[in-house]
């Protein structure tokens, strides 16, 4: 029992890092455009399927992960340029519906290209096997998965907090007009930010492929999980997204042991509890 619980905790931690990574991408897009990206789940699914396709072509896993980041990022840039940017001036309801339409199209395109049955892929050989911790086994891929997510989050955090590009992005988030007046190309930054957010979602999809496989409902599932993570963590808070992502992952994996039937609903219970105790989210500002 202890070993099972320990295994589930480690599992939850790794999955939670993936949730944090995806929610982080959603958070960037939300911050830049002030619009919830309804196509985020579709970008995540696209990443998983692209990773699968790349592995089938015989590419090494590292390149497949790169593709899982780049293809959704590119798709995100196109979506932003052709649609979201044009709808910038109206109420965000139109941007929202536009992204809803994009999500529908991408979901169906994935089904057309890769079919309706679920796909699975194995991790490369150097990531197979497990460490023996004495009380439980820790699969190598889980370690890689968590580490990759952590490193990516750290890199993007440094990019946003410590570089010139990042400070321009933050300026664009805070005061769009002012930043424009100072000669910052806000439109370009927004496209970059959207691409980055979509890319992070895609990378998450690529990372979970050896763990959970790819299927037609993964996008919608992840979309709602990412929303819940943002609400629990508090909109606009990076630490919040991280902490809430891990929390949601742990809740899911632990409840899978004790109450498997309720595990999908429990994260929403956690959301409601958070809202009742701290309406602004764990780390959100009022």
């Amino acid at each position, binding site marked *: 029992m202890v070993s099972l619980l320990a295994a589930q905790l480690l599992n939850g931690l790794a999955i939670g890092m993936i949730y944090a990574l995806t929610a982080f991408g959603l958070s960037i897009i939300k911050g830049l455009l002030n619009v919830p990206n309804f196509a985020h789940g579709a970008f995540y699914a696209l990443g998983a399927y692209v990773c699968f396709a790349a592995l089938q072509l015989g590419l090494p896993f590292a390149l497949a992960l790169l593709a899982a980041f780049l293809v959704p990022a590119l798709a995100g840039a196109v979506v932003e340029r052709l649609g979201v940017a044009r709808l910038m001036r*109206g109420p965000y*309801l139109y941007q929202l519906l536009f992204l809803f339409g994009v999500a529908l199209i991408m979901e169906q395109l994935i089904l057309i290209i890769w079919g309706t049955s679920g796909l699975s892929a194995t991790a490369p050989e150097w990531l197979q096997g497990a460490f023996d911790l004495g009380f439980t086994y820790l699969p190598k891929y889980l370690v890689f998965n968590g580490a990759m997510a952590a490193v990516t989050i750290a890199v993007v955090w440094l990019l946003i907090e410590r570089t010139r590009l990042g400070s321009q992005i933050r300026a664009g988030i805070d005061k769009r007009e002012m930043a424009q007046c100072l000669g910052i190309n806000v439109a370009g930054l927004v496209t970059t930010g959207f691409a980055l957010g979509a890319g992070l979602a895609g990378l998450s999809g690529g990372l979970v492929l050896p763990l959970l496989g790819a299927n037609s409902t993964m996008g919608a599932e992840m979309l709602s999980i990412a929303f819940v993570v943002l609400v629990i963590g508090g909109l606009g808070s990076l630490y919040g997204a991280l902490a809430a992502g891990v929390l949601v992952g742990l809740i899911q994996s632990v409840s899978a042991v004790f109450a498997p039937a309720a595990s999908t609903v429990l994260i929403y219970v956690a959301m409601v509890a958070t809202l009742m105790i701290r309406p602004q989210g764990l780390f959100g500002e009022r």
Partner: protein
Amino acid sequence: MRRVTSTYLVSAVAIAAAVAAPLCMPVNIATEIAIYGIFALATYLLVGVAGLYSFGQAAFFGVGGYVAGYVFIHTNLPLAVGLLLAAAGSALIALIVGAMSIKRTGIYFMMLTFAFNQMIYYLAYSWRDVTGGEDGLGGIRRPDLALPGIGTVDLSQHMHFYVLTAVLFVAAFAALYQLMHSPLGLILNAARQNPRRTASLGYSVYRAQLLAFVVAGAASGVAGALFAMLYRIMPIDAISWTNSGTAVFMVIIGGMSSVFGPVIGAAVFIWLQGFFSLIWARWPLLFGVFIILVVLFLKGGVMELFERTRRLISGRTRAQPGPGREASTQAGTQTVTQTSLGTETGTPTAAGKEGGAR
């Protein structure tokens, strides 16, 4: 001040449309349009009148459907009781969801309604004993309708069921129109345009919006109940977030400038769905393309198309920027100036600040 068109007059148009519908299309299609018409009207009350961009209306549609389905499978209760229970169940859920969401404005509100929708979806998904889970809740009967003085009406006949649906649709339509021009409707309208000013005038914006949310939830529940009875099955898809998106889309495609907009939107959606699903199994793709085209090129929806045609015919070339709102929904609140839709609570900066973003 512009006179408000009488509820009777506007309802007469709805009645005429409801009578004409089964003459020009298969009766089940007409029934479905009437059902989705109720759903779209409820969503219009939130999105168009109150400015509450809810992306979780399918939750209430679904709860109504499941409640009615459960009642009509497991009990012998009469029709009216089943419908009332469906409305009450949805209203109760809407009260809980609304109470937790409405205080958060802008994007936060929208994300919360969406998340609650997903929560209820997964509840329905995993509570197989009651909802049938993935397979849907099948074998829902249509109880006979006992009318005092007329006798019992057999609703298993499609035409009879259509008449029931159409009557409820016209009632919902008239009620919504009446509500829009009631003091509550005016408060909602004012709060959409300037919530702080409305609050400082002494109105409780929260209470008015919560009331609207509950009313819309109850109406969606009735629509869901009728939907469950129409095909005698309550599919799990009807409660999914895609259906919530559909509800918002019906409001937009019809046009938010008039109360007829959502009804036209419902008709367009049902027709498109039927048409697209005939040509291709992957019809949501075509639907997605359609949504994008409308959002990019016809923001005012079908009502804007009418408006453009009318202006073309009357020869006036004066260009009006943006999706111009008809004054009919505005009467009485003209004191609050509204330049465009963008000045609503949903402006990026305002929503961002209130939504707790940094």
